[in-house]
């Protein structure tokens, strides 16, 4: 596929799969306010996913799976519901189960910090659509990061148990976190062509923000090895969590390839 389409797919899939995971919190959060906040974050990311998948399809219709003749399924849905696992381009970081609230907050902090830095850069993308999506996303993800940051510090400095869980949760998500800043070919090409960003160039900035939150929380950087080497999720090699996620996510859509919803 074209580099722009590939790049939009990648960013769209991150948002789509993570939105899916976060939506699993609905009716399960520790308090009503958090149920609402997590649903809101999920909705924002779902919105970003829809715009990015639509942009990918517009930039290169070849990325959209072929649907049976007469199928009314729009491109964004063909991409979300009719691609097989290996065609998804999200990082494995967003696939894993939510774990408890501490794991969730730790992952959200890392994800939102990275994505905010990325979207800020993308506001000057030479692709006007991408720039517009980024401009909208910056506001949203700033809130996501702040929400996660506040809870991160609260849990770290709350009770003994919350601190224990937070530290464990950070350790749980940390091994896959490295994948977000490990550049894949698509990102390198996207950066070279001026519409995308090489995530390696964001690492310092992201790291500084994360360090600041860790310091405020009085939590050490986890001393754990990264999970896997190479781009993995970005080239379609996912974790074992992805298959069951897609089985559930795609089941109704796939049962009705000519369905209207």
């Amino acid at each position: 596929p074209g580099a722009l389409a590939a790049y939009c797919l990648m960013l769209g899939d991150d948002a789509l799969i993570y939105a899916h995971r976060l939506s699993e919190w609905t009716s399960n959060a520790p308090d009503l306010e958090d149920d609402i906040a997590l649903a809101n974050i999920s909705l924002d990311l779902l919105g970003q996913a829809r715009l990015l998948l639509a942009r990918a399809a517009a930039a290169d219709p070849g990325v959209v799976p072929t649907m049976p003749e007469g199928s009314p399924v729009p491109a964004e849905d063909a991409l979300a519901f009719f691609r097989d696992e290996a065609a998804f381009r999200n990082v494995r970081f967003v696939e894993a189960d939510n774990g408890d609230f501490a794991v969730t907050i730790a992952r959200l902090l890392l994800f939102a910090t990275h994505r905010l830095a990325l979207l800020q850069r993308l506001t000057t993308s030479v692709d006007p659509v991408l720039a517009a999506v980024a401009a909208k996303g910056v506001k949203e993800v700033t809130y996501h990061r702040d929400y996660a940051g506040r809870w991160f510090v609260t849990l770290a400095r709350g009770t003994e148990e919350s601190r224990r869980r937070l530290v464990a949760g950070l350790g749980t998500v940390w091994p896959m976190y490295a994948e977000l800043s490990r550049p894949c070919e698509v990102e390198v090409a996207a950066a070279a062509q001026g519409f995308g960003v090489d995530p390696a160039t964001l690492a310092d900035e992201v790291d500084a923000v994360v360090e600041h939150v860790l310091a405020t929380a009085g939590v050490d950087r986890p001393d754990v090895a990264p999970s896997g080497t190479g781009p993995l999720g970005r080239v379609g090699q996912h974790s074992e969590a992805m298959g069951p996620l897609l089985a559930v996510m795609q089941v109704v859509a796939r049962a009705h390839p000519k369905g209207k919803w």
Partner: protein
Amino acid sequence: MGDTLEADFEHIIERHERIEPRDWMPERYRATVVRQVAQHAHSEIIGMQPEGNWLTRAPSLRRKAILLAKVQDEAGHGLYLYSACETLGVTRAELTEKLISGKQKYSSIFNYPTLSYADVGTIGWLVDGAAICNQVPLCRTSYGPYGRAMIRICKEESFHQRQGYELLMTMMGGTDEQRAMVQESVDRFWWPALMMFGPPDTGDMASPTGHTAQSMAWGIKRDTNDDLRQKFVDMSVPQAEALGVTLPDPALTWNAERGHYDFGQPDWEEFAAVIAGSGPCNAQRIAHRKRAHDEGAWVREAATAFAARSVVEEDR
């Protein structure tokens, strides 16, 4: 002096004005409002589950977004309503405890399972539709905070109802399987929706506790169960026709004399069983809420401890 207060209270009620949190009110009025508002709040919270069940399987991204926003709205409604209760001196924690222990009820409708994506549409159309019939009059209810919450809630519910109906309409324009799915869903939800208005006001099945009469006198309730049920049926029949589905009631027919539809009675024994705890999902719904609440305890405790510590640190 008690007499003056009571007279003032009665006076406000008579003039259809609002009782506000700081006004004097009879203890039974307070208890009745708390019970009704809490039950409504609990219904919003438990009501997140049957629809939330389809969030991970929504068949299009647009529908996923609509559903997520809707379930989120239900959480928001729960939030306003618990706040309305708090103006009467009851905390959310106390109310949650009463929900989980079964001491307070929620709407019987949420004890039925959602078994296909069409149920998301049917709940919007019929269940939210019935809720609106029940709730619109409550915008004028005598207790101020409840009435104001209801205004906002009704606005959103009516938006949800349109979205649900629109989903069903879209599915009816899809494949044969989709049309069958819509019909099957309507078949399952029609009678439980009629039960949402509560037992008949008269006859063997009428509620023996007489909540309705007292609540109406106090302006907490504004219409009888049977009146609201009739209104709902009258509203729904033409909508069903426009949709192209059959409502599963052979007795349903237009009565020109009354200017209303005649209709059959739901299975009131089933209703009694559901209210008594034997609905298909009662145990599951409460267990879900209890699990989420219990699993969140350490988070709420952490927030409390952190807030307390922050106050202490600021004081220094």
